[in-house]
């Protein structure tokens, strides 16, 4: 099984890598989501402008607070995704090599475990274990999102046509040459689909980082909830949704451009 993201607003990218749409279609596709996000944010701005904010609300919704939360959220999700890639792709390569293949059940079991425990559980467990703050939040996010990239790296490498590998070996490519010139480029679309899934998981899970003092847009939502200010909660929720859509939109574009031509 491979993970395929099913993001809202963007057509689903298939595992095998469907040809990217032609330019006019692409532009329309790429423009839709940012337009929607901008529209939603403008509406939110107008709505907030029409509200009479009390002192607590005003304190929770300062420009600085929102910017800081959004920046932190961006960092949490991108840094954790970076580490997910740095760990899961080499691990996936290793687990598809003949000598180390037998370790597959162990690592898949671990990664599965990481994903099966509810995300808040992973965060809290890691906080109790290591401590709280940015660094430990990242560790928890990585543990939680590693499975899709690991799984997709393995599936991506395993679905490469064996005759392509045979042809490469038969022409005199070394094993490393076959991996870097043939297997990995051909697995890129599937790996990217996994990375996109991991990224979206991380954007979502990072919302919970507030409970372990990790910051992020969850701070705003949580601030609204604990102070009983619905306006704040609502603003935090809209911002989080807009942020998730935006990241997924970027990931979709990256997927289209990073996919090797000719596939």
């Amino acid at each position, binding site marked *: 099984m491979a993970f395929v993201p099913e993001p809202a607003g963007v057509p689903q990218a298939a595992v095998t890598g469907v040809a990217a749409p032609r330019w006019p279609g692409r532009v329309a596709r790429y423009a839709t989501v940012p337009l929607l996000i901008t529209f939603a944010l403008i509406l939110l701005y107008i709505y907030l402008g029409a509200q009479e904010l009390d002192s607590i609300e005003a304190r929770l919704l300062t420009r600085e607070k929102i910017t800081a939360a959004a920046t932190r959220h961006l960092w949490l999700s991108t840094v954790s995704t970076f580490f997910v890639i740095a760990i899961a792709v080499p691990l996936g390569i290793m687990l598809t090599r003949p000598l180390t293949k037998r370790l597959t059940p162990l690592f898949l079991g671990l990664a599965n475990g990481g994903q099966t425990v509810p995300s808040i559980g992973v965060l809290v467990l890691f906080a109790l274990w290591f401590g709280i703050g940015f660094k430990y939040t990242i560790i928890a996010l990585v543990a939680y999102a590693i499975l899709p990239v690991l799984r997709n790296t393995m599936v991506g490498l395993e679905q490469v046509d064996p*005759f392509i590998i045979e042809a490469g070996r038969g022409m005199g490519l070394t094993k490393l040459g076959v991996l870097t010139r043939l297997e990995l480029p051909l697995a890129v679309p599937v790996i990217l689909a996994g990375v996109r899934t991991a990224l979206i998981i991380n954007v979502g899970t990072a919302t919970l980082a507030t409970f372990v003092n990790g910051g992020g847009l969850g701070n705003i939502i949580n601030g609204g909830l604990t102070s009983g200010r619905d306006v704040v909660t609502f603003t935090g929720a809209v911002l989080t949704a807009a942020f998730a859509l935006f990241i997924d939109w970027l990931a979709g574009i990256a997927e289209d451009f990073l996919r090797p*031509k000719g596939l």
Partner: protein
Amino acid sequence: MTEATKAQRAHSDGEVMIRLEKLEKRYPGQKQPAVSELTMEIPEGEIVILVGPSGCGKTTTLKMINRVIEPTSGRILLEGDDVTNANPDKLRRRMGYVIQQIGLFPHMTIAQNIALVPRLLEWDKRRIDLRVDELLDLVGMDPSKYRNRYPKELSGGQRQRVGVARALSADPPVMLMDEPFGAIDPITRDRLQNEFLRLQEEIKKTIVFVTHDIDEAIKMGDRIAILRDESRIAQYDKPEHILSDPADSFVEDFIGRGASLKGLNLKRVRDVELADWPTAPQTASRGEVLEALRRSDQGAVLLLDERRRPRRWVDARDLDRTDKPLLETGLPPEAIVRPATTLLDALNEMLKSRVACAIVVDDSEAYQGAVDIDTIMESIQSMRAAARDESRALAGAEIRTRPDPS
């Protein structure tokens, strides 16, 4: 001649390019070896076909030559060097490799596919570019049109051509081909086979070619090794000898019925004396045409235009009809073949034609002669006689060269 000598007739016309010595492959957990102590020599510049029933070990044998499959025991010599323990990656760069599935790299352009081995060998860029264009030309594909395309944009036949070009990229002395035309429709396959034979006349590579199709083996091979289980050689010889003088009942069964017919694949129209059918210029009068018909013992006259191109077959009955001009009676010329056509194809054309012969024309469409049933019979008989004589001569030579028993 003993069966053993008959199975592997001496054939050292050229240098030996590849020598396999007691090559064996055993898979763990299997009683029978996949390939058992195979010893054979592959002469330089020839197409040697390994042919045999499925599971006989022919593909395993081929893949042991470039050590995609490592032999369990035995030796492989390439141009006299023992390469059994050489670096396999470097060894493979000296051998082109074409497989049935072709295995073009879908994420690389045609040029990048072809350039891969030269790049591994660190040729400079200019030389690689020139080589790519040269090879595309060689396999009949316009470089400016195809260089930057991706494999998915090509037809099956074009992909196969690129596969061959890619195998030739670093100009290896040896090509290994595993059923290269196996997955292609019969019409395209026939064309690719002919193109490949023409190409081989130019490049003169040493080619080891695996197929399960005896007809392909006869058509493509300078020599054929018919293999039975465990890649044991049942017979290793020139195709005409295998057809006329099969070593045993296994070979006979494998060739199947119609060995004489298959032999017709080995001869081309230009190799035989053409039959003489009466002709007349299309401007000739009925009297002149009738005269030409009477002088021959055939049933029809072929009318030719001023450039000797065939226009119409007419027979005596057509000549009696005066209601229409001569060129509108009779039959249109069918079954037109060229000097490079095999006799089997010519026979096939002839059988389809309503006049019992195939017309031979040259490149400018001018009439050269005809192939009829007598032509075919004669050539079958002469092939048989030649093969018999050669067998006798070789048997005699063996007796003469045998050392004195004293």
